């Protein structure tokens, strides 16, 4: 629980930096559209289109914040005398009766529950709103895909685990005579288990693997679907799992040396290793499907999106420059 709290706090502190770095490439909407959005006069499609810009534009976000705050300030500037008129109240009362009738007949989605009910249902998964037109969020899709993969592995893994346990049994016997050999046997068992699990996952998928050669013939990488990365140093005789799951389908790779490799994939996925062992994720120029990469070294590479647009970095992905087509 303490770790979770610490994690939440750390995430919050990094959020401001990450959000502030977001940049929208679209031109900002004019005040007429921004005002219509605030008045909820736009169609769902128009509002969604604007929100995709607002999500990344700190200028528009600041304007929206000012607008919302000024609304409460000006509500007192409206003609107050009308509020005292019973005639003004009549349509409001009628609307309240209609709203009550609608609520009784069709309870709203989980999101509209009053705060008093929130405590009871706080842990329940939120039902999708009845008027939603968009499909499940990318995060929900990813979670469901992950669960599906994990369930598959859980079903298949017992045979792999059985092999590991067998090896472990051997290691226990060995431990009574040689601790070093027992530790080595446990490491080998763990490696076999990881490799077996990855192989089971790959067997479950029908798409072919992607091999990434290096200038050294005996060393190469390969991408196993849906998003695993393995490395071989004996010309493919054996493979070592380095990344079990990148969280997205990987589509292309480039290895300028036997220790440097860049891999790209869907939704702006870019991974890189500079020592042949440890991988890290590089922030992409945009969250689009990347279908090709050409790497020069650990800091310089060019990525190509599915649209054909190319971006280049010379500082390890800290900044990207769009290239002329």
């Amino acid at each position, binding site marked *: 629980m303490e*770790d979770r709290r*610490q*994690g939440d*706090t*750390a*995430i*919050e*502190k*990094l*959020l*401001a*930096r990450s959000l*502030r770095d977001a940049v929208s490439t*679209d031109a900002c*909407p*004019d*005040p*007429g*559209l921004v*005002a*219509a959005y*605030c*008045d*909820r006069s736009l169609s769902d499609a*128009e509002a969604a*289109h604007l*929100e*995709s810009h607002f999500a990344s534009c700190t*200028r528009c976000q*600041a304007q*929206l*914040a*000012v*607008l*919302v705050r*000024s609304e409460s*300030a*000006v509500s*007192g*500037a409206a*003609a107050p005398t009308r509020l005292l008129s019973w005639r003004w109240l009549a349509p409001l009362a009628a609307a309240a009766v209609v709203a009550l009738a609608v609520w009784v007949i069709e309870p709203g989605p989980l*999101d*509209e*529950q*009053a705060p008093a009910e*929130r405590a009871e249902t706080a842990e329940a998964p*939120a039902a999708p709103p009845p008027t939603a037109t*968009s499909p499940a969020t990318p995060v929900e899709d*990813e979670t469901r895909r992950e669960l599906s993969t994990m369930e598959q592995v859980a079903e298949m893994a017992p045979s792999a685990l059985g092999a590991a346990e067998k090896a472990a049994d051997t290691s226990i016997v060995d431990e009574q005579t040689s601790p070093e050999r027992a530790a080595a046997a446990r490491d080998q068992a763990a490696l076999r288990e990881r490799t077996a699990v990855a192989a089971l996952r790959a067997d479950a998928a029908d798409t072919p693997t992607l091999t990434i050669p290096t200038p050294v013939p005996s060393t190469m990488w390969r991408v196993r679907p849906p998003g695993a990365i393995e490395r071989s140093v004996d010309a493919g005789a054996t493979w070592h799992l*380095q*990344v079990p799951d990148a*969280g997205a389908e990987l589509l292309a790779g480039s290895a300028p040396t036997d220790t440097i490799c860049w891999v790209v994939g869907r*939704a*702006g996925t870019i991974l890189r290793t500079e020592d042949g062992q440890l*991988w*890290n*994720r*590089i*922030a992409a120029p945009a*969250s689009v499907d990347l279908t090709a990469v050409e790497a020069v070294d650990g800091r310089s590479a060019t990525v190509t999106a599915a649209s054909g647009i190319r971006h280049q970095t010379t500082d390890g992905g800290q900044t990207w420059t769009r290239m002329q087509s």
Partner: protein
Amino acid sequence: MNQKRGTPNEKPAIGGPDHTAFVSRHRSLVDRLHARAIAARPGLAGRVSADVLGEALSRSVAHRFGDETPTPAEVASYLESLHVGDLALACACAEGHEAAWEQFITEVRPTLYAAARALARHDDTGRELADSIYAELYGLETDRAPGGIRRGRRSLFRYFHGRSKLTTWLRAILAQRHVDAVRAGRRFEPLGTGDGGGRRVPDPSSTPSEPDPDRARYLSLMQAALTAALNQLDDRDRMRLSCYYIQAMTLAEIGRLLGEHEATVSRKLDRIRRRLREAVERELTEVSRFTADEIRLCYQYALEDLPFDLKEQLEGEVQSS
């Protein structure tokens, strides 16, 4: 759908054959909307003709659909959604009718000045902001000269297309100019917390942990993992986060913006934060192969790097709301 992006500096189309043809094509609809506008603002009767309003409606359709060719049903549906009473008032003011200006001064001007006072620190600054917009609404004297088409600035009312209330549109212009002035002047407005507004420098003497050569790398990996997780969120979730952490909006303000209850905003923010943390930990575990201890170290470095405690602020806000 062609979203025509523009600023108040866009040049409006001048009335001509296109607008006349539009009014002829949609005569009955224009007449019905004109009647509705006069019913909403009886003081404009006899001051705004159906043709003048029709020209404004034609400009609004052109602004909305751009180069698209909407069907008659789409045009009708769009026009029915407009605030025609306010559009008629804007037309009459742009034409210079005194009665229309009296209505504007009585009903709309107080809102403009109240909004300007609310966002400016001093009453004088607020009045200046409102005065500048008021002057542009009035336009240049030559705009009302008879005969011919004069170059030069036209009334700001020409840029109002009726998609919102007139008061909201004016507040949006105020907001845009205020934000642009702040950004241009590089003044620090308390628009956000975190390491933005009121930037603080971490006290080196308060760093408890031993120097770690991998500190920068750990923080960089964690930041990259968080950025990747943020890119997976949908637009409304990212808006919620930005409004809360960058713009320092309250839960109630975010709720008013997105049309949600304050409690809903709070619950969704909690859910988003939890998912982000889980995504970051998954990334660090599966891609960077970090152990649990290394992840804990990442968090520790992040907490030391940025001494603000947003959680404290959040808890304080929830208690007071």
